[in-house]
């Protein structure tokens, strides 16, 4: 609704489910302020966010449980504002002020 407080950051909410929260100090919900643009001046997309989370929010050293080959590892679903990120352009989706981005690890128990 309102413009972001500072033009150079955007405020979003990142959430983790299905066990991924254990990689992020058991936080299921993370309010975040991230740069609005990356180093090249391009607008921040989900690929940037994933890398940002890995470097700034993830406490667990086992990065490969979240990122593999430069992208979110297989078995993790990314949901942007309650929809499969495939519907939004996957990694290239440009993050908007107020977005909710949920990372869900697929479960296998039964």
């Amino acid at each position, binding site marked *: 609704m309102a413009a972001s407080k500072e033009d150079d950051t955007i405020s979003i909410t990142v959430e983790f*489910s*299905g*066990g991924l929260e*254990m990689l992020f100090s058991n936080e*299921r919900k993370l309010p975040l302020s991230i740069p609005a643009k990356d180093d090249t001046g391009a607008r921040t997309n989900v690929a940037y966010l994933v890398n940002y989370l890995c470097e700034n929010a993830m406490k667990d050293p086992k990065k*490969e*449980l979240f990122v*593999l080959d430069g992208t979110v*590892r*297989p*078995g*993790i*679903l990314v*949901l942007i504002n*309650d*929809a*499969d990120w*495939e*519907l939004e352009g996957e990694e290239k989706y440009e993050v908007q002020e107020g977005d909710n981005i*949920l990372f*869900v*690890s*697929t*479960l*296998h*128990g*039964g």
Partner: protein
Amino acid sequence: PPPNRWPLEKNEYRRYGRQLIVPVIGLQGQLLLKGASVLIVGVGGLGCPAAAYLVGAGVGTVGLVDGDTVEESNLHRQILHSTSRVGMTKVESAMVALHSLNPNVKLIPHHGRLSPETAISTVQSYDLVLDCTDTPASRYLISDTCVLLGKPLVSSSALRIDGQLMVLNNPPLPPGNTAGGPCYRCVFPKPPPPDSVLTCGDGGILGPVVGVMGVLQALEAIKVLTRFTGASTNGAASSDSPSLLIFSAYSNPMFRAMRLRARKPKCAACSAQATVTLEALSSGSLDYVQFCGTVAPVDAL
């Protein structure tokens, strides 16, 4: 069948009366349930409550697949089994309980785990499948089989305090038809690295968490099987768009519904370019355990 003034037996009107008068079911829905067959793969924490409510509802034929025997550690959540049946196969134990709940339902035992060799012949004669299993390998196998045979699939899973539920391959149109519902491979094209599944291995499970997901599987199955009745006039169509229900027992809200993608244009199973074929599957050339890495079932919970 010729029209019949009393298409159900007298005792069926009595037994299912409270469900018959629900507008989305009605007599037509009850007849659809009676004529339907459902295969439940896995008679554990999900399969027990799912089977109880499907058998209670009067689904005509229910098949049960499991290779395990009942252990004491199952009983906190696998409510069809009992202390005196520890050591019995889960399929036999469940049949005892289900038969005593509703003797009108035909129960078909399938002992042993589903494998690429047995999947096609086991699933073939059923109308709908419930995935109540506990490993990545079985989830890919069941989904592939359902795509190849054109069966809708209600897939759920649970761990610790979390649960997930999807209705896949719904509608169950042939591979290549983009109007069909997405399959498990559309949502998860690649299996998780075995290491990442390992973290779940020691996770444990809270009984009512997996219980809720199992009951919801029974509900989704009933919705799919009766969808040609009043249901469709009641806003039900909208709930047919593919979605993932995420449950987290200690979050607020506990339930969240997420919109899922349509079929993936290059899906290995359900697209026009599918490499998963009936021949490949039944010849054993698809090695699901290899594909998913070597996590032993017990480690993956």
